[in-house]
């Protein structure tokens, strides 16, 4: 039964063609958000459940707006209000939801592979909105779209992703998307945050920030999570900021027209200096705006619209 459903669990297995099709679809949805009536009837009568078991504002609201602009009925369930906090398992919670016949379940959960678990057991399309340290496919797509719109291409660009690569789903989805589209992707962080075998995903790895940033077309900074300090992955904010943060001096080593990106939320002054975050090279708010169009495309695709199988 579930085989006939279209899911978006991860970008890693997709082909460049499929990613490009989703980006093109997203672009075609983009102008809807700039109309006075921001709604099309594409998913009218369909139900989209937003099951967010891990805190998220940006991604949840982005998916919710995307679903609503496609005229779908949405149901938003957050971690604090769900039965999961009462000890119900993820499968039981979603089986109950599935009994109410939603068409699409968008899942954000802190455990890697949980969307795969649902896809095996639940008769609905599953969209991964971030699973643990595995993938955040719509973030990877929206980042690719934002880069493509600014640079008119992705192939041949040098993209540096700097931060806690080991625990970053954003990094994995970006490596998959940008790598397949022909970018030269570099990941960078202290060795405690660069996991073994990351190169196999299609990138190069270094712990030298200058190597990563030199002549880069895009510098993508990842949020540094303070709780990693208790795991002794890095000694202090201060040293992290000095050795792996991005300020104007470091950015000067990239290409003059380099783009600065961040999936948010930003730790200002830790991984990203405020004047860079708000500076002319920053396209952080474009990322957010593109998120809605990309999620409209993904929901539309999973609901059966568009061509091909992603």
């Amino acid at each position, binding site marked *: 039964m579930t085989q006939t459903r279209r899911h978006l669990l991860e970008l*890693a297995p997709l082909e460049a063609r499929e990613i490009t099709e989703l980006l093109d679809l997203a672009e075609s949805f983009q102008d809807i958000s700039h109309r006075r009536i921001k709604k099309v009837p594409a998913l009218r009568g369909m139900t989209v459940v937003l099951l967010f078991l891990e805190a998220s504002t940006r991604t949840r609201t982005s998916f919710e707006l995307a679903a609503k602009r496609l005229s779908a009925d949405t149901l938003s369930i957050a971690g604090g209000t769900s039965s999961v906090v009462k000890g119900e*398992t*993820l*499968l039981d919670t979603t089986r109950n939801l599935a009994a109410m016949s939603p068409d699409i379940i968008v899942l954000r*959960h802190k*455990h*890697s*592979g*949980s969307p*795969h*678990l649902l896809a*095996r057991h639940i008769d609905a399309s599953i969209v991964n909105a971030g*699973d*643990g*340290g*595995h*993938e955040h496919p719509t973030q990877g797509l929206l980042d690719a779209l934002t880069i493509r719109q600014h640079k008119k291409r992705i192939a041949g660009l040098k993209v540096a992703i700097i931060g806690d690569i*080991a*625990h970053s*789903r954003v990094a*994995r989805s970006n490596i998959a998307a940008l790598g397949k589209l022909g970018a030269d992707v570099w990941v960078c962080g202290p060795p405690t945050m660069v*996991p*073994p*075998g*990351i190169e*196999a*995903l299609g990138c190069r790895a270094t712990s030298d920030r200058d190597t990563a940033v030199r002549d880069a077309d895009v510098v993508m900074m990842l949020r540094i999570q303070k709780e990693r300090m208790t*795991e002794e992955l890095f000694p202090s904010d201060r040293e992290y900021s000095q050795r792996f943060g991005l300020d104007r001096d470091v950015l000067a080593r990239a290409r003059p027209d380099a783009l600065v990106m961040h999936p948010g939320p930003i730790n200002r002054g830790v991984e990203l200096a405020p004047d860079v975050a708000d500076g002319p090279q920053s396209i952080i708010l474009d990322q957010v705006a593109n998120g809605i169009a990309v999620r409209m495309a993904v929901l539309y695709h999973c609901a059966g619209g568009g061509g091909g199988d992603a």
Partner: protein
Amino acid sequence: MNTRTLIRGGRLLCPTTGLDAPGTLILEGGRITGASTGEVEAGASDSVLDATGCVVAPGFVDLHAHFCDPGEEHKEDLRSGGRAAVRGGFTTVVVGSQTTPVNDTRAVTEMIVRRAAAFEGCRVLPMGALTQGREGRRLTEMYDLRDAGAVALGDADVTVADAGLLRRALEYARAVGLPVFEQPEDASLAGHGVMHEGPVSTRLGLNGVPAVAEVAVVVRDLALCAATGARLHLGPLSAAESVAAVRRAKADGLPVTCAVTAAHLHLTDEAVAAAYSPQLRSRPPFRAEADREALLAGLLDGTVDAIASGHRPQSPVEKDLEFDLAEPGLVGLETALGLVLRLVLEGRVELVSALRALTTGPARVLGREASLAAGRPADVVVFDPAARARVAGADLSSRSRNTPFLGQALPGLVRFTLVGGEVRHRSTENVR
């Protein structure tokens, strides 16, 4: 009346004595009384078991299994575990100390021994805990545990973190005369890991258990083994470097033995990648292909003494979860022989070497003997290596179904398992 049992028509294969010939095995009074390569006339009162096309070998000995009894009887108990064992050809099983309450006192050991004897399964030999509550702080009453029937001392799947305490435990156990079992994994290095740390865990975004979490403990324990002279058994092992360290220690003459599980000889971390299946969550984790190859090489050169089932039942409550929330472990008693025979069919190991690691090797770890020699207890397995059977949940004797091999056709069908001359398992399946 003294009735005889004749096992006729099979290939008698005993890795301990070196016997390998077609013939008839004669059992009497619960013991093996002889083996004949000629014709043996059956008397009127003799019972005859037809072993045509089968291998007749000493019953298998398992060093690493958990029967969950007392404590988690919804997963397995002494009756179901014993049945699963004999269905898999095992006649002797060492059950881990990780019961609830922990098997750290004479009372618990005696209860396990007494209750197990009431069921017609395998021989159940308890492992007594090495430290009270398996908490790694105070020694157990090891003499008492031994006298109650414990055959080994160990904290099962918990490593003794305190090296000073482990040293004292090894010294004390040496006088008690029992081997110390340690499943090596440094908790601080393992961290929140749920699978082998490597390119696959990186791809899946799951926390990894690095191989060094095991190797560091193995190296420490071998140094303590050398310092104390106590008998040390390590396992189940999963990492290439662990096997290399044990190989060197054996060459130095240390009294160390080790085991791997049948599943670790087949599965690697790549299997996890298929779909994050919690059935593939294991402790120790399934590691890289190079590790699997090293475990096999260790089996071939004798570094690895025993192949264990690693039997660790879990119910759906513990398994139908997100991968990193699921409990580790898989049931193994009823698939171990099939997995070992698969290696034989693949040409990776000779049948007699494989059987040695299921019989002679593990028995010696316990200071015992598994053989078809006259005078030995009649613990015998008769299996058809050419038959193939599909692993089906409904067929398993274990109370749990947590195996990644469900649905796979494995070679080998156990026709008869005899414990002390009694037929404890007789296959009703007729698969060829």
